[in-house]
C-alpha cells in the first residue's frame, strides 16, 4: 500500500510539474528558501467575495489552475483530480462500478459483469475493449484479471463531467475519443464520435453526477438505447410526467442519485440483491434513508386517502405486492422500445457472402429497429411492455459459467429468490428477457462467445463463424469445450423499478381482480374476482336449484289452476 501511495504521489507530481511550468518555476524559486511553509502558503486570491453570487458548492473547479490542462489523456485529468481528492480513486476502486464484481454473501456466488453471463451479448471476456467501453476506468483490456490498483485509471469525468461533451468511445476499453478520432468511430451511446475537450470537461466538474452522467452508460446497456433494462432509456433524460413521475421536470425532477444515494462512491441499489421490503422498518424521523427502496420515502403505508376505506385496503396490499407492481403499469414507456427476444442461433447468415440486416420494428417515434442482423441474429422489441410478475425477496441466483444446465428446458440465466407469501418476499415486476444462446452439447454448459475483435480472424461480428467464435471464447477463458455446440432457450429477469407512473396511471383493482388478471397463476395469494371459486360454484348450484324449484312449483300451480278453475279465491 505504501509503495502504491508513493507511486501515486510520484505520478501526480510528475503530471503537475510537467503541465504547469510557470507554477513549477515559482515553486522552484520557493524551494531555494529553506522555509518549508512558504511554498504551500495558502493562496486565497480566487476565493469568492461578498460581491460575488453565492454558489451551491464550496469549490468552483473552473478556478483551479491544475484543471486547465493541457491533458493528453483521461488518465491525466484523473491525476489532477487525485492531487486534491487523494482518497477518491481508492473509494471508486472499491465499488462495483470499478470491479464489475459482486459478492453475494447469501448465495455465496461471485457475480458481476466480469463473471456472469447474460442473455444479451453473453459475456465480457474476450470482447473487452467493446464491453469495457462503459467501464468507469481506462484501459481494462482483460477482464480475466481484475483492474490494476492504479487510481489514475479511474475515470472521474464520466460521472462528474458537467460540460456535456465528455464521452467514451465504444471500442477503446473506456478511453474517450481524442484527436485523431478514427473514421466511423462511435461513442457508447451510438453517436458519431468527435474528439473530447478534456480541459473543458475537467473545468466543468462537480458533484453529484447528473442523470446524463449515469444515463450515458446505463440507458444504453446491451448495446443500444433501452436494449437491456426496459425501464432505463434515453426517455429518462427529459421524461414527461406520465413516463417517470420522479424524474420528470414536471414531477419531482429527481436525479438518479436522489434515490441511489452513495457513500464513499458506492451506490445503493442492486439487481443482484434488491430491496423488496423496507430494510429499515424502525426508521426514525431524521435518520438517513440509505436504501434505494420506495418505502425509504413513502413508508409501507403510503396510501392516505381521499377515501380512508380504499386507502386502508390498498395499504393492506403492501405486505404482498411491491410498490412497483402497481405503480409501474408497463415498462419501455416514453417512446423507446426495449429488446424482448434475442435469438443468437440465427446469427451468421450472409447474403451474397455479405452480412445484412432487417428492420422489422417501427418504434413509436418512427425509428426503424433491427429485427435481424447477421452479427447478432433475430430480435423482437416491445414498447409499453406488461411486466412478468413473480414472488421475489430480491436475491438473484445466477446460472454461472460451467454450471450444468438442462437443455431440454428453458435455462434461467438468473433465478428469482423468495417464497410465495414469505415475509421477506413481495410480488415484483420483471422484464423477462427471452434468449437463445450457445451451449456445449456434450458438457451441458453455457459457452463463452467471442463476438468483438476486428482483425483477429475469429470474432463472430467480423467473421460470422460460430465454430471459431465459441472456440476462441472458451480458449480465452481457459475452459474445456467439446466443439459440439447447440442453442438453448433462456430467460433472464431484470427487476423493473424505474418509470414509476403518476398515481392516476397506476394499475386499478381490475388489473388483477379479474379473470386472467395480472396475478393469474401466482401461488400464495387469493385474488377475489379472479374467477368463481368452489364456494361460488356450489352456491350458484344451490341458487339455481332454488330458482328452478320455484319456477317448477309456480308452473305446476298455473297448470293446476286451469284444472281447478274457480277453486282458487285469490
Amino acid at each position, binding site marked *: 500500500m505504501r509503495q502504491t501511495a508513493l507511486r501515486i504521489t510520484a505520478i501526480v507530481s510528475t503530471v503537475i510539474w510537467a503541465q504547469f511550468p510557470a507554477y513549477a518555476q515559482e515553486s522552484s524559486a520557493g524551494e531555494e528558501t529553506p522555509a518549508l511553509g512558504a511554498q504551500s502558503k495558502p493562496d486565497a486570491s480566487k476565493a469568492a467575495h461578498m460581491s460575488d453570487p453565492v454558489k451551491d458548492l464550496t469549490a468552483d473547479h473552473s478556478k483551479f489552475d491544475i484543471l486547465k490542462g493541457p491533458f493528453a489523456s483521461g488518465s491525466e485529468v484523473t491525476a489532477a483530480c487525485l492531487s486534491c481528492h487523494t482518497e477518491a480513486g481508492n473509494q471508486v476502486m472499491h465499488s462495483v462500478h470499478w470491479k464489475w464484481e459482486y459478492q453475494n454473501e447469501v448465495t455465496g456466488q461471485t457475480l458481476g459483469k466480469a463473471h456472469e453471463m447474460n442473455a444479451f451479448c453473453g459475456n465480457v471476456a474476450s470482447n473487452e475493449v467493446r464491453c469495457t467501453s462503459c467501464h468507469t476506468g481506462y484501459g481494462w483490456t482483460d477482464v480475466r484479471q481484475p483492474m490494476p490498483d492504479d487510481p489514475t485509471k479511474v475515470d472521474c469525468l464520466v460521472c462528474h463531467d458537467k460540460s456535456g461533451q465528455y464521452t467514451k468511445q465504444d471500442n477503446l476499453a473506456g478511453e474517450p475519443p481524442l484527436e485523431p478520432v478514427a473514421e466511423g468511430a462511435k461513442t457508447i451511446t451510438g453517436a458519431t464520435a468527435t474528439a473530447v475537450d478534456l480541459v473543458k470537461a475537467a473545468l466543468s466538474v462537480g458533484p453529484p453526477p447528473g442523470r446524463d452522467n449515469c444515463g450515458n452508460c446505463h440507458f444504453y446497456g446491451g448495446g443500444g438505447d433501452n436494449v437491456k433494462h426496459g425501464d432505463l432509456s434515453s426517455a429518462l433524460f427529459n421524461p414527461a410526467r406520465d413516463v417517470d413521475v420522479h424524474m420528470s421536470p414536471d414531477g419531482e425532477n429527481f436525479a438518479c442519485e436522489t434515490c441511489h444515494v452513495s457513500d464513499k462512491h458506492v451506490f445503493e441499489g442492486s439487481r443482484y440483491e434488491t430491496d423488496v421490503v423496507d430494510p429499515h422498518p424502525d426508521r426514525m424521523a431524521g435518520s438517513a434513508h440509505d436504501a434505494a427502496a420506495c418505502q425509504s420515502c413513502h413508508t409501507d403505508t403510503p396510501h392516505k386517502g381521499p*377515501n380512508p*376505506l*380504499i386507502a*386502508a*385496503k390498498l*395499504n*393492506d396490499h403492501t*405486505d*404482498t405486492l411491491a410498490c412497483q407492481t402497481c405503480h409501474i403499469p408497463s415498462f419501455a414507456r416514453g417512446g423507446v422500445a426495449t429488446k424482448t427476444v434475442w435469438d443468437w442461433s440465427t446469427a451468421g447468415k450472409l447474403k451474397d457472402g455479405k452480412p445484412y440486416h432487417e428492420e422489422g420494428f417501427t418504434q413509436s417515434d418512427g425509428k426503424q429497429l433491427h429485427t435481424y442482423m447477421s452479427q447478432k441474429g433475430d430480435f423482437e422489441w416491445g414498447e409499453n411492455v406488461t411486466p412478468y410478475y413473480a414472488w421475489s425477496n430480491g436475491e438473484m441466483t445466477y446460472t454461472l459459467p460451467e454450471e450444468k444446465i438442462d437443455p431440454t428446458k428453458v435455462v434461467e440465466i438468473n433465478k428469482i429468490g423468495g417464497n*410465495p*407469501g414469505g*415475509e421477506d418476499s413481495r410480488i415484483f415486476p420483471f422484464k423477462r428477457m427471452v434468449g437463445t444462446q450457445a451451449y456445449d452439447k456434450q458438457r451441458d454448459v453455457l459457452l463463452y462467445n467471442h463476438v468483438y475483435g476486428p482483425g483477429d480472424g475469429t470474432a463472430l461480428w467480423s467473421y460470422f463463424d460460430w465454430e471459431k467464435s465459441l472456440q476462441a471464447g472458451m480458449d480465452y477463458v481457459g475452459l474445456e469445450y467439446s466443439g459440439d455446440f447447440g442453442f438453448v432457450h433462456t430467460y433472464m429477469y431484470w427487476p423493473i423499478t424505474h418509470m414509476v407512473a403518476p398515481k392516476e396511471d397506476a394499475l*386499478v*383493482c*381490475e388489473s388483477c*381482480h*379479474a*379473470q386472467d388478471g395480472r396475478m393469474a397463476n401466482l401461488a*400464495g*395469494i*387469493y385474488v*377475489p*374476482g*379472479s*374467477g*368463481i*371459486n*368452489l*364456494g*361460488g360454484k*356450489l*352456491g*350458484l348450484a*344451490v*341458487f339455481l*336449484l*332454488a*330458482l328452478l*324449484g*320455484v319456477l317448477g*312449483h*309456480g308452473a*305446476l*300451480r298455473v297448470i*293446476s*289452476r286451469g284444472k*281447478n278453475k274457480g*277453486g*282458487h279465491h*285469490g
Partner: protein
Amino acid sequence: MAEHCVKVYSRFNRLWHWSQVGSIMLLFFTGARLLGLHTIMPFGLAVMVHTVVALALLLLWAFATFWLFTTGGYKQFIPRLAGMWEVGRFYAYGVFKGEEHPYVKSYERRHNPLQAASYFALKMMLFPAIWISGLAYLSYGFWDHLDGGSFWLEIIANFHVLAAFAIASFVVIHVYLLTIGHGFRQHVRPMVSGYEKVELTPEAEAYFRQQGRLLD
C-alpha cells in the same frame, strides 16, 4: 274469534325488514361484482359499498337482536313441529288443488311452522355464517401474516360466497311464497302499512281496540 285488521308490524319492525331488503340487495349486487359475475361497477367502488353496507347491516342486526329480546319478539321465530306436516303437505300438494292455506295466523305466531323454521335457520345459521366469514374476510390485514394466511383467506372467501348464495336462495323462495295464497300484493302490504288480518279472541280484540291498534 274473528278476523281483524291489527297492527302487527311496528315501525321498527318494518324499518328493520326493508333496510335488510335494501342492504342485502346491495350486498348481492356488489358481492356479485367482487366475485366477477358482472362488471357493471368498478371493483374498488364495489369493495367500498360492500364494506360500508355490510357494516351498517351488522349494526342494524345488533339493534334488531336487542329489540327482539327486549320486546319478546324473538318468540315469533322459535321453531316448532306442530302443524309442520300440514303446511308441508299444502305446499307440496294442496296448493295445486286450490286448497286454503292450513295455517291460521295469530298475533303471537305470525309465521307458519315451516316459515318459522326457515327464519330460524336463516338467523341462526346463514346470517352468522355470512357475517362471521365477512368480518374475517374484511379483517384479513390483521391476520394474514399468520402461517397459511392466504390459504385461510381462500377458505373464508369460499365459505362467504357459499353462504351468500344460500341467502340468495332463501330470498328467491321467500319472494316466491308471497305469490301463494292471497297473492303477492296482499302479502307485501302488511310489511308496508303494518296492518294485517289476524284471528283475534274477543279479549284480544278488546285489548287491541283499547290500544288503538285495530283498523276496523
